[in-house]
């Protein structure tokens, strides 16, 4: 990526003034960095998605099925009936423009079609032509246009330049949710075989192996054992992790990114040490080794298929309730879709913390508790022995992940945990956190390297807010509760705020956590010296 622009050059290239030609008459250009590679044919065949083939967005011929317009039309009609969101959002936008500068991709690119209102108009213009009388008669005068291959290409570009983060939806006076628009757009694109590999291969892997990386059960056991070795080296204690065992109280589900790549692995070790410290009676599962749901941004059916494994496994293993790790897309599905899609979970019990007796009434139907809720409750009841000073080398800020923020409202729980395990915590400016948080620009399947140009552009608002606290408070660590964040925020921080590292909350919890019978800790989970032990290297 030698020709990649420097941050100041990229910044200078952003121009918010729209082009002279109207948006319907302004052609789009696929260039390296602004689109993700198409799904491989084998992947599509495995998940039974239509039209598997080799193709590229930069090709002139996308090898669409012969009757593709008809397929799209029928799919559009069907979804208008199945989703009131879609039907109402097609009808009521007044184009007030309040959403325009709320999108991270617009802020970082200045491309007017990244204004959420125009992203939706890409569908709305076809809706008017195909489904409204005025659009049929008046055509372009009524903002309607005919579905052509160029329109389809535009859909592919802009529905894969949206991370479904819902920030625009917060500001819309009618709650028009671009995540819904994008989900519909992507479902329509699937019907004619236009999708991206970074979303589809994980979907296929999740279905087959239980996790998006395609890790098979024996390999997962190896990975977990390896982490237990590291934990032993750091703490002197040997931990065993139950896999696929029946008869435990809790099933623990977390995104598989956590046991595959740094720094998620440290977060994962953090969970294991926490469970060891409190003696939690739990098991994990290889069949359900992915909490993160790649179906959320693929299709509603794919979401249901992948999510179904959690309840399946909870039932098979006979647990009482389910604990979920730090993950954004996973928690949107768990909060807003799981019970509807795969419930009722009447074979489980209302979650109750075995240590504090706290009953999680707010999860009485899904029976799934967020680990930040669980840990904050432990801390409140003094069940954890914590030495905050072990994190004194960290000056921490917190990135609210889009989905827990705007599809759940998990805002105070993670902050409470952080403040109890570190001494130096600083929030970013208020327009960039909590419900107003900015996306990492790599969510919804877009966290892939070939998309780096748009990721860095979309990462500008988050990176800039991070830079602000870095300069003002010497922040050197950004915590998050999302596995995608833990992967995508690293290049983002390197680019926009070099020197800031990314961490999960439970990595910091485990660093501060004093285990019974542990040896004197001299290093943190990254095996770097703890504060006060730097000299002994």
């Amino acid at each position, binding site marked *: 990526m030698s020709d990649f622009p420097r941050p*100041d050059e990229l910044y200078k290239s952003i121009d918010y*003034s*729209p082009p002279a030609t*109207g948006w319907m008459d302004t052609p789009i250009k696929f260039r390296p960095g602004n689109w993700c590679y198409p799904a491989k044919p084998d992947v599509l065949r495995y998940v039974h998605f239509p039209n598997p083939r080799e193709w590229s967005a930069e090709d002139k011929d996308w090898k669409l099925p012969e009757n593709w317009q008809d397929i799209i039309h029928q799919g559009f009609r069907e979804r208008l*009936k*199945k989703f*009131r969101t879609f*039907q*109402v959002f097609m*009808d009521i936008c*007044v*184009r*007030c*423009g*309040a959403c*325009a*500068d*709320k999108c991270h991709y617009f*802020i970082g690119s200045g491309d007017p079609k990244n204004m959420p209102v*125009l992203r939706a108009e890409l569908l709305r213009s076809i809706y008017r032509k195909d489904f409204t009388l005025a659009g049929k008669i008046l055509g372009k005068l009524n903002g309607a246009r005919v579905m052509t291959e160029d329109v389809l290409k535009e859909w592919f570009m802009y529905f894969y330049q949206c991370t479904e983060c819902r920030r625009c*939806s*917060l*500001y819309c*006076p*009618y*709650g*028009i949710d671009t995540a819904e628009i994008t989900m519909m757009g992507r479902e329509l694109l699937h019907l004619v075989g236009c999708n991206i590999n970074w979303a589809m291969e994980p979907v296929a892997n999740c279905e087959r192996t239980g996790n998006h990386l395609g890790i*098979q*059960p*024996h390999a997962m*056991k190896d990975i977990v054992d390896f982490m237990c070795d590291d934990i032993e080296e750091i703490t002197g204690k040997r931990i065993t992790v139950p896999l696929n065992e029946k*008869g435990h109280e809790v099933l623990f589900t977390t995104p598989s990114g956590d046991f595959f790549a740094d720094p998620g692995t440290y977060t994962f070790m953090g969970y294991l040490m926490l469970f060891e410290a409190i003696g939690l009676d739990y098991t994990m599962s*290889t*069949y359900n080794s992915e909490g993160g749901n790649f179906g959320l941004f693929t299709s*509603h059916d794919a979401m*249901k*298929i992948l999510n179904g*494994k959690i309840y*399946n496994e909870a039932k098979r293993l006979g647990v009482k309730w389910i604990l979920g790790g730090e993950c954004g897309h996973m928690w949107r599905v768990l909060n*807003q*879709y799981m019970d*509807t*899609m795969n*419930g009722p979970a009447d074979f489980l019990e209302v979650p109750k913390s075995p240590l504090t007796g*706290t009953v999680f*009434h*707010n*999860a009485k*139907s*899904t029976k799934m508790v967020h680990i930040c809720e669980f840990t904050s*409750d432990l801390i409140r009841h003094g069940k954890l022995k914590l030495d905050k000073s072990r994190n004194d080398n960290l000056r921490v800020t917190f990135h609210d992940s889009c989905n827990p923020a*705007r599809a759940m*409202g998990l805002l*105070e729980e993670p902050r409470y945990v952080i403040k109890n395990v570190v001494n130096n915590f600083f929030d970013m400016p208020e327009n960039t956190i*909590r*419900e107003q948080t900015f996306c990492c620009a790599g969510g919804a399947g877009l966290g892939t390297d070939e998309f780096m140009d748009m990721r860095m552009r979309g990462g*500008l*608002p988050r990176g*800039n807010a991070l830079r*602000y606290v870095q300069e003002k408070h010497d922040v050197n660590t950004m915590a998050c509760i999302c596995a995608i964040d833990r992967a995508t925020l690293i290049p983002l921080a390197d680019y926009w705020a070099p020197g800031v590292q990314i961490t999960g909350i439970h990595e910091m919890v485990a660093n501060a956590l004093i285990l019974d019978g542990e040896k004197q800790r001299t290093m943190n989970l990254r095996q770097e010296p703890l504060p006060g032990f730097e000299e002994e290297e």
Partner: protein
Amino acid sequence: MNALYSLVFVLTLVLIPLVGVGAADLKTIFGVCIPSTAIIVFVAGFVYKIIKWSRSAVPFRIPTTGGQQRPYDPTMFKQNKWDNPSTGPQTVIRMLLEVLAFRSLFRNTKASLHEGPVVAYASAKWLWLFALLFHYSFFIIVARHLRLFMEPIPGFVNALDFVDGILQIGAPVVYQSDAIIILGLGYLLGRRLWDARIRYISLVNDYFPLFLIIGIVLSGVYMRYFAKVDVMAIKELTMGLVTFHPHVPANIDITFFIHLFLVSVLLLYFPFSKLMHLGGVFLSPTRNLPNDTRMNRHINPWNDPKVHARPYADYEDEFREKMVNVGIPVDKPLPSAPAGAEAPEKA
């Protein structure tokens, strides 16, 4: 260009009654037939649209949450009940704030880029303010017009009339709502014309209703303050309409027919346009549902049981040998291995 088209449209619409009534003297058509048709189309169209929306399913409960969720222990964290409601009554308050106070628009910010680079966000409440002014004055003006359709005039209409003219300026007294709506419309039109970004997204569908409403307001203002038309004659006509005894008095000013025609066009246009946000705002699933899906199961009417996860048994069949080899418990033993021999004790 879209603005110009819309302006020409509306001017053409003004010409129609000018010619129709002024030259051709089709007073019954413009005074009775067109308005009654418009009302019927408006009501039927509005109802049709609402029914169409209601018949579209709400498969999932997906509110956009704007604050702290209901925590597991209310003493632990404070829930933001109005922006992230978890019960019906809280959701009603969220909707009331949205519909009556434009809560979401109140959040509006403006992002700007500066050297550094620095992305700055400033509060931007002008749109909220003028949108609110426009909608409320529109509402008051419509309510004031009830005096033309009711005999005796209800007390609240007279009260509204009095309050709206409380500044007692001019004769006839100037209604504040008339001044404010012109201000509001001016802002809404002005930002579409001058803000390059808003101009870029604006369609004829956006300018046309603005010019139409401006036309209605200006013709109304002209009648009241300048032409000083015979209101009693107009009331004779309007009362005739609502009592189904249509009658067009002779001494009605041509401006009234223009005003009435533009209103009729607005009513005809309304159900098939973005103006239906009036009804749609109540039906938006990201606003009108509580964030309670971990507590109460929401039902999807088209949930398809045939769509389901890969069954565990299928998974174990594919990986059984590998699982057994590393000591992961399995449900069905390997054909050759003695049953249960490989499964470790519970940890």
